[in-house]
């Protein structure tokens, strides 16, 4: 029953007809022989070259050599070689250079090196062709044997009770088989692995790209993603710095971070309005912390409703109070956090100020998870 629903069975022979595969392998064989002929020719050149090097080396050893001097292609004169250390070497394009024996040998050796590299390239090519040919042969023989390919499409959540286990198992392999439809069954596993790796790498790349983007846009701060990213980082720092507060850090942070966040806040007002749900809370927190001093007055005066700005201000009031009441280090801490402002931090603010601002907390708590609050409370105390 299940098989009828899920699987499809295709014989390999229908995908790759035996004759076609054999034809392909024959063509590969032809290509290989052609390349091998070329290789043989190159090898001949190399031996010729080596012989010539030996000859050129030996010729200057004597003043003259008795030879038959060719006269046209079908006749000779008896004669002798003279000036045995003067060679006229063709450089190409009809240009000749007069060289000594030694210089000629250098030229010939360089020629030999190029020939060697050509031979290497050709050998690599032949190796590739042979691999291809063997692949075709295997495919042909498999098709002839009547091998079948079984494919099963992944159906999402078809059987809910079956849970994810069977789904997961079936999911990956079929997708790869689909991708490899055109290939022979033999290489499927390897291909699957390769595809998986490629996918992974691609994802990594994408992630890296987005990271870069966020870093670059930090200053612009128009990019919501960027900000949230940064916030996350900073929140991590904050949690680390949390309890062992160092006075130096406070002061430094105060001076440096106070300015930056302001920029953020202004732009984020816009972004917040655009998407309340996600970021409104965070931006509020930040603003609340950063602009605590500045906004305090406004917040109270302005309308309290559910509009994000209102919330921000309401919250802002809270940290500012806390700053004022506690120490000088407090504000710096807050501002630092504000910069990072994530949901988590928000909760922190709430904790510290919760006692003082009841109305604000009620507003904010509605939009925030209650869990982190308690956690950070614990940490604080």
């Amino acid at each position, binding site marked *: 029953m299940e098989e009828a629903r899920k699987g499809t069975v295709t014989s390999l022979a229908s995908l790759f007809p035996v004759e076609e595969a054999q034809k392909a392998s024959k063509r590969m064989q032809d290509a290989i022989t052609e390349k091998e002929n070329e290789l043989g020719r190159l090898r001949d050149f190399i031996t*010729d*070259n080596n*012989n*010539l090097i030996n*000859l*050129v080396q030996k*010729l200057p050893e004597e003043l*003259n050599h008795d*030879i*038959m*001097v*060719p*006269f*046209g*292609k*079908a*006749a*000779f*004169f*008896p*004669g*002798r*070689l*003279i*000036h*045995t250390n*003067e*060679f*006229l*070497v*063709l450089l190409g394009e009809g240009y*000749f250079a007069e060289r000594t024996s030694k210089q*000629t040998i250098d030229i*010939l050796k360089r*020629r030999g090196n190029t020939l060697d590299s050509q031979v290497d390239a050709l050998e690599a090519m032949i190796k590739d062709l042979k691999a291809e040919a063997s692949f075709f042969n295997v495919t042909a023989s498999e098709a002839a044997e009547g091998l079948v390919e079984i494919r099963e499409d992944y159906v999402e959540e078809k059987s809910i009770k079956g849970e994810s286990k069977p789904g997961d198992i079936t999911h990956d392999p079929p997708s790869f088989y689909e991708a490899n439809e055109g290939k022979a069954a033999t290489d499927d596993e390897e291909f699957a692995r390769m595809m998986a790796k490629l996918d992974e790498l691609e994802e990594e790349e994408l992630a890296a790209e987005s990271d870069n983007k966020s870093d670059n846009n930090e200053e612009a701060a128009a990019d919501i993603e960027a900000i949230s990213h940064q916030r996350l980082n900073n929140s991590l720092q904050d949690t680390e710095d949390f309890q062992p507060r160092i006075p130096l850090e406070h002061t430094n942070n105060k001076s440096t971070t106070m300015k930056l966040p302001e920029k953020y806040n202004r732009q984020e007002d816009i972004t917040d309005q655009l998407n309340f749900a996600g970021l409104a809370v965070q931006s509020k927190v930040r603003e609340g912390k950063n602009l605590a001093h500045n906004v305090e007055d406004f917040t109270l005066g302005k309308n309290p409703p559910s509009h994000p700005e209102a919330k921000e201000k309401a919250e802002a009031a809270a940290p500012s109070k806390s700053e004022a009441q506690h120490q000088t280090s407090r504000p710096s801490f807050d501002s630092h956090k504000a910069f990072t402002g994530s949901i988590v931090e928000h909760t922190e603010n709430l904790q510290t100020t919760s006692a003082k601002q009841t109305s604000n907390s009620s507003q904010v708590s509605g939009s925030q998870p209650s869990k982190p609050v308690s956690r950070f409370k614990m940490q604080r105390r």
Partner: protein
Amino acid sequence: MDSLHQAKVQKFEEFVDQRLKPDLVRAIAERDKVFEQQKIFSDLRRNIENLEKNSVTSLRTLVDIGSEVYLQAEVPDTQRIFVDIGLGFHVEFTWSEALNYITQREEKIARQIEEYTQLIASIKAQIKLVLEGIREIIQLPAEKSLPERIF
């Protein structure tokens, strides 16, 4: 009947493709080789005549020792020349003897060329003939140009 005709046509076509055409290609290649020889000997004759005209007694040339590397060579006595007479044999000739030999050789080469030309023509005629036979079997109308010849 149809299948019989088809089999016949196929046989003829195979004969043309696998026998006559390769024969033709081979014959043409052979003839080209002979042409080459003809050129070699006509060059040699011209060169010897030049030597004679200029009454050259000694000669300096460049000898290719392989891969376009040349070396100077000297021929002290040009009176005697060794000429390739085929099958790897070389005969020592004087200039006049050499010229005499070359003329005879050239005649022979001309005859060979003639033979090959005949052969090529006959192969081409056979191909034509077989193709004509195929045409008759499948009963295509004859080409119009043939019957219109008037002498």
